[in-house]
């Protein structure tokens, strides 16, 4: 059974069709990329899958369970976590606190117990803290654990976002332009990092990216969107030479090159 199955997903905003008949199936352990020019509907696809937007039509299934139209927190509870194109950390809280927030949904307690500071809660808090520190180690952030998240450089903020997403114990990770704003060296580090967490956490990863080096380097399969429509699907080598994809990015007629 596939981990994520998206069937005929459509999203309309009034008259504008942002996403049209989007179909994708991800098997366990796959690393699939979603590319396309700006405004082609990639983030919209993510937003609909993760419950930020309600779909106008279509279905999303996670390991066979229908999650179409659920709220974002419900979908995260089911096991899909994500990062955002414009980083959305909690700027006033420290890096460690940001990551610990990701653990909150798995907490088994009540506000009363927590407010009274009962041992059953204190134990869980300690466990959450230890696990979060471990995540910070893995993502190379333990030196800034107690800094305010908003004060970090852009590249490190992205890592915090990924660590926070990992704290929710997901089966699937959706990364929205994780390499945005990174230089080639940082991008390379990120590529290794993504492949590492793919293995170490047993994840399935779906990622949006503009940096072709990263996309071609680590994605096993690609989907290409343009104006909300899927114009190509396949392996990176095929996509690279697809005339429709080239014209979508460059905006020229496909015949010019022939």
């Amino acid at each position, binding site marked *: 059974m596939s981990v994520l199955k998206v069937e005929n997903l459509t999203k309309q*905003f009034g008259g504008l069709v942002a996403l049209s008949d989007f179909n994708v199936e991800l098997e366990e352990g796959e690393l699939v990329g979603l590319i396309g020019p700006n405004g082609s509907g990639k*983030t919209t696809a993510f*937003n609909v899958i993760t419950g*930020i*937007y309600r779909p106008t039509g279509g279905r999303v299934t996670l390991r066979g369970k229908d999650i179409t139209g659920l709220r974002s927190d419900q979908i995260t509870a089911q096991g899909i976590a994500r990062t*955002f*194109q414009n980083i959305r950390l909690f700027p006033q809280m420290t890096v460690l606190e940001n990551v610990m927030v990701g653990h909150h949904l798995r907490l088994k307690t009540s506000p009363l117990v927590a407010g009274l500071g009962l041992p059953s809660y204190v134990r869980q808090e300690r466990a959450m803290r230890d696990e979060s520190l471990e995540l910070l180690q893995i993502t190379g952030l333990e030196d800034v654990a107690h800094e305010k998240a908003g004060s970090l450089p852009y590249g490190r903020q992205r890592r915090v976002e990924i660590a926070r997403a990992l704290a929710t114990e997901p089966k699937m990770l959706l990364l929205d332009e994780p390499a945005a704003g990174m230089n080639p060296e940082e991008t390379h580090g990120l590529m290794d990092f993504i492949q590492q967490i793919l293995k170490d956490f047993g994840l399935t990863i779906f990622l949006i990216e503009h940096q072709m080096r990263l996309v071609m380097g680590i994605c096993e399969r690609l989907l290409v969107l343009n104006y909300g429509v899927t114009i190509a699907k396949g392996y990176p080598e095929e996509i690279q030479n697809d005339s429709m994809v080239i014209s979508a990015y460059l905006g020229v007629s496909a015949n010019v090159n022939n």
Partner: protein
Amino acid sequence: MDLTLFLQHLANGLSLGGLYALIAIGYTMVYGILRLINFAHGDIVMMAAYFAFYGIALFLLPWPVAFLLAIIGTVFLGMGIERVAYRPLRDAPRISVLISAIGVSLLLENVAIVAFGGRPKAFPRPSMFAEQWEVQGVRFNNLTLFIIATCLVLLVAMFILVYRTKTGRAMRAVSRDLEAARLMGINVNWVISLTFGLGSGLAAIGALMWAMKFPQILPLMGVFLGLKCFIAAVVGGIGSVPGAMLGGVILGVGEIMIVAFFPELASWKYLFAYSLLIVILFIRPTGIMGREIQEKA
């Protein structure tokens, strides 16, 4: 209930609704541009009434002069408040401006209590408004008709201003997207000042007619009136001038009709507005004529 009584109530409702509409426009325009609920707007209404009162009672001005000066004074008051208490917080988190508005409201109320005294004062009703007419057996108060007529004229004028002039277009642009409007070369500060000035001016006219209709003025008179008018703006569609007009009329007519048909509910009259608010926020939160604002992720 027979037709004549119904028409009388309707006329009352429309005149009340017109007053609510005039004051509601101030709320809706400011909210549309700054996303701010101007808590002090109701107190500006109160100040207008007192300006006119003292103009007549203390300075012994003829009432048209006092009224005019009161309106001008209120316009400056509204613009001054924006300049002093809201503009400095333009870049602060939105809730800070809201708290500032509460502070201004408190200040105006307390200054009024000290300066004007807490006991209600009797607002003069010029004799020309004391007459009664009779049309087809329905008795109309001169004042009621005057209010309806004035409101219609002003509302039409507002409509023309907002939708048919360059200035109005600038106001609508700022209300849609402040930054984009600024980049287009629109002087945003001037537009905002104008919005406050207009809203306050209309509120002042509404205040004067209100004070003539309900001749008791108090320092706290603006509070519940303001709240009701804000509800009218929300019901009609916050950010929309026609919406404020619609909301005001609905509220005014509704209030009068409920008490007319169910006199036992008179003491619960206050709840009509609040209940209407809760209902509209559940059924159609953007109001009858409002637009949807979607957040991007």
